[in-house]
């Protein structure tokens, strides 16, 4: 699942005929000033300026400013760019036209197991969240396209009447077209507003989640995906992602500040059980990590270095189930190299390492891990006869 920021999200909606406000995404005030000279609407309309970053609660942070004239928009842009919020520096601002309106509505399309669901409500903004029962749905099977009649029926069910029902039905139809053709997983417009001067429905805010796996058939997806965490990816995380994109198999790494139990387990499934075990034991996760699909040893080594560099860690959990085809000796070779490098850099002091694993060449891999004891590592190695998450219990019992 890949989150797309508002600008490119709006761009995709526009591509499928949905009315969106005029907008520009800028990285500096100068750019905005130049765009102001080129685009009339920036001078004529009231404007909204928002930090164009994957940040939650932008309004509270003062990163959304409304009802601005161009001068004020420039000032707001200047103020926002470069602002530091947690790990994120604001680098982009989206300046869009304010659409005068009275009514707000809601429209979304989401993925379901059978296909998708179109959601419509005749209230919008925060009102829809507290009145979720007013959201009406049209379920569609994969391959099915909603008929104009079905959409109009949905709009009417949601309380739209007369010509507006037809308009809303058309709007929802375009949302579906965008969803279906752009391999979206979730599209939400809240609010949809009725533009006063021409009576058109306009998408004021877009939440767009695309299927990153479908990127190969969308050459016009020329935007970067945003982190879904409400924060930007850290440099370490981005480095691991860069490795991940290059290799057979996968390596994943997400930092969780403040934790003291570092995770270096194998497998997309087992890694979550290991994380669960840490939480269940009252431990605090310092990260999430995972390697799988028989990745090359150097990729696992990079991942290991990142894990060893996490601040304030006391334990490292090198867990894993019994692998099907991941070579335990080879991947452990990468981990061992990473450990050695970390140790040479003065890391891993007072850090206990806990290993449990099975799979192809498990004996050789586990023996190599055990041998690290002789190099002064505080390491405890277990084989398949120790249940999967018992090493977490052992690690967190130790005073």
């Amino acid at each position, binding site marked *: 699942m890949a989150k797309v920021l508002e600008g490119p999200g709006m761009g995709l909606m526009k591509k499928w005929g949905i009315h969106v406000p005029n907008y520009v995404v800028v990285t500096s005030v100068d750019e905005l000033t130049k765009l102001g000279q080129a685009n009339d609407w920036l001078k004529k309309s009231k404007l909204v300026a928002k930090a164009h970053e994957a940040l939650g609660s932008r309004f509270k942070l003062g990163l959304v400013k409304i009802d601005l004239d161009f001068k004020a928009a420039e000032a707001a842009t200047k103020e926002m760019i470069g602002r530091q919020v947690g790990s994120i520096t604001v680098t982009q601002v989206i300046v869009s036209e304010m659409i005068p309106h009275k009514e707000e509505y809601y429209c979304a399309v989401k993925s379901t197991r059978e296909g998708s669901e179109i959601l419509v409500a005749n209230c919008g903004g925060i009102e829809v969240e507290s009145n979720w029962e007013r959201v009406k749905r049209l379920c569609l099977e994969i391959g099915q396209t909603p008929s104009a009649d079905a959409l109009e029926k949905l709009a009417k069910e949601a309380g739209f009447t007369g010509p507006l029902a037809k308009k809303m039905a058309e709007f929802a139809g375009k949302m579906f077209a965008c969803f279906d053709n752009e391999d979206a997983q979730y599209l939400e417009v809240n609010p949809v507003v009725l533009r006063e001067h021409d009576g058109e429905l306009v998408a004021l805010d877009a939440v767009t989640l695309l299927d990153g796996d479908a990127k190969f058939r969308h050459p016009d997806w020329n935007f970067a995906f945003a982190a879904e965490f409400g924060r930007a990816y850290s440099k370490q995380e981005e480095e691991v992602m860069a490795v991940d994109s290059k290799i057979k198999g996968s390596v994943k790494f997400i930092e969780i500040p403040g934790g003291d139990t570092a995770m270096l387990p194998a497998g*997309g499934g087992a890694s979550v059980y290991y994380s669960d075990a840490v939480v269940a034991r009252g431990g605090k996760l310092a990260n999430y990590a995972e390697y799988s699909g028989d990745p090359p040893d150097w990729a696992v080594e990079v991942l290991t270095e990142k894990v060893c560099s996490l601040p304030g860690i006391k334990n490292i959990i090198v867990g894993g189930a019994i692998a099907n*085809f991941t070579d335990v000796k080879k991947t452990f070779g990468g981990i061992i190299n990473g450990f050695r490098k970390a140790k040479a850099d003065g890391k891993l002091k007072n850090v206990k390492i806990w290993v449990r694993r099975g799979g192809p060449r498990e004996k050789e891999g586990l023996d190599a891990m055990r041998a690290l004891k002789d190099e002064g590592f505080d390491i405890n190695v277990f084989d398949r006869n120790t249940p999967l998450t*018992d090493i977490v219990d052992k690690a967190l019992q130790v005073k």
Partner: protein
Amino acid sequence: MSILANKDTRVVIQGGQAGVNAARRMAEFCYLIKRPLNVEAFVYPPDAGKTNEIPYGSGLIAIPVYKSIAEATKNHPTINTSLVYIGADRAMKGGMEALDDAHIKVVSMITEGVPEKDAKILGAHARKLGKVFNGPSSIGIISAGACRLGVIGGAFDNLVLSKLYREGSFGVITKSGGLSNEIIWICSQFADGITTAIGIGGDAYPGTDYVSYLEMFENDPQTKAVVIVGEMGGDLEERAAEWYGAKKRRVKLIAVVSGFCQESLPKGMKFGHAGAKEGMKGEGSARSKSDAFKKAGALVPPTFGALGPAIKETYQELLKSGQVKEPVEPETLPRLPKTVEEAMKANEVMVAPLIRTTISDDRGDEPCYDGYPASELINKGYEIPHVIGLLWDKRLISKQEAEIIKRIMMLSADHGPCVSGAYATILAACAGIGLSQSVAAGMIMIGPRFGGAVTDAGRFFKYAVDNKMSVDEFLAYMKKNHGPVPGIGHRVKSLRNPDKRVKELVGYVKSLPIKTPCLDFALQVEQVTAAKKDNLILNVDGTMAAVLVDIGFPVDSLNGFFILSRTIGLIGHWVDQKRQDSRLIRLFDYLVNYAAPKRREGPPLE
């Protein structure tokens, strides 16, 4: 009994190398359960018409590769199952092709990163046709004692340890590939093992859900209990719980769900498989799934670690109620033949080596020359002549000796374009022949008349010195037994037009505090021969030979010094011609003496 995969399952594998690797694993399983290989064919257009060789026991089975599923099933009408190992961008097309073939009833897709929409289309299409589409991102399906589809089950040793050679009583359904193996192992240690284990894949919308498989297990009398390993995200676990709670079921259900850690993580932070994402309204959380299973009457261990004891408890109940009996283990099991390397490592076989080497070994992380690592030689200041010393004479030569060799090489690296070797290389280069063959053409010229006299010169000078011959005795000996003295005489150089290279080398060697009996002898020979005829001087081959013998190189290696040095020149000539883009050359008629008979009429053939 089992579900989905059984003794009648015949497989086509769609894909290249990953598919071949899977076939190998499948062959190991077939060998373990003493059944013929269940892979009938591959479909992989780039290799169509070829065969893939799959090891089975100690032999190899050739499995044909076809261009299309239709071609495969036409030639192998027993095929009823397809495994898809095609890249994510082409996986849907491949999956559709398999589903649309009347022979194929089950399609399992291993490919990861398939777009959700494609997976949904495949799933819907299979349901419409009444077929099974398993995956994407599935590790495979395995039925103990009957059939393995994909790499599920892992290495051969693990198949044995997990008792997959005979059926047990537990069905397994997991999203995670790694955990499927773990559960199979747990079932074999805490109970009597599995009937069938299915990896449904960790995507958000797997083609077939838990419920479809639960129905199948419910209808399989051998399966007494089913273990589900679930994950947060989606509603498949809730649907499974709903199915289980809907009415009294024959199978017992044991379920664990991962993702409780989400509750204490920063909001919005998600990880694990693609499908592991909580819904907007908290649905799909590990807790809601776990609760749903509990409510439906399933056994839900609090942690993954408690799964083993829970399975054991269920098994004991089944034993007590007589629904299952303790399994009887076979007395012997086939053992996977070891490779020669493995067997040697285990001291089980002794293989007579085919060749023997005493100079170098590159089995480590770098080559060692006569035991010395190349990098160490470099870092300690040794040079190419030292490497020659190690590889040709197995000794670390002195700095002085190295300097002599370096000078010999520098002096004989090239001798212009007209000599046989360079000329042959140039001729070949002009004919558009490649580097190695052109250099080889020049190299072929090295022999008794060109450059190849070093060894013989060394041999005879050494013979004379070793036998304390006088120059006259030597010349008489040579005349009687061998003919002209190798290393003596030159086509163009003479006493009055001496060879500067010889002067240079002799001068240098004589300036050193070393004994040079061979060189001294050769110079004495020259004095006698050149007095007889002006051009019977000690030539560069003879000089090199005498010096090299004096510094201890074995006679048989001596031509090597000329070959090695001259290779530098030959490569230079080839590159030079290439650089000029030289054209094909041929001899001019006026350079040929046509001494053949005049043109005449051929007689009629008799």
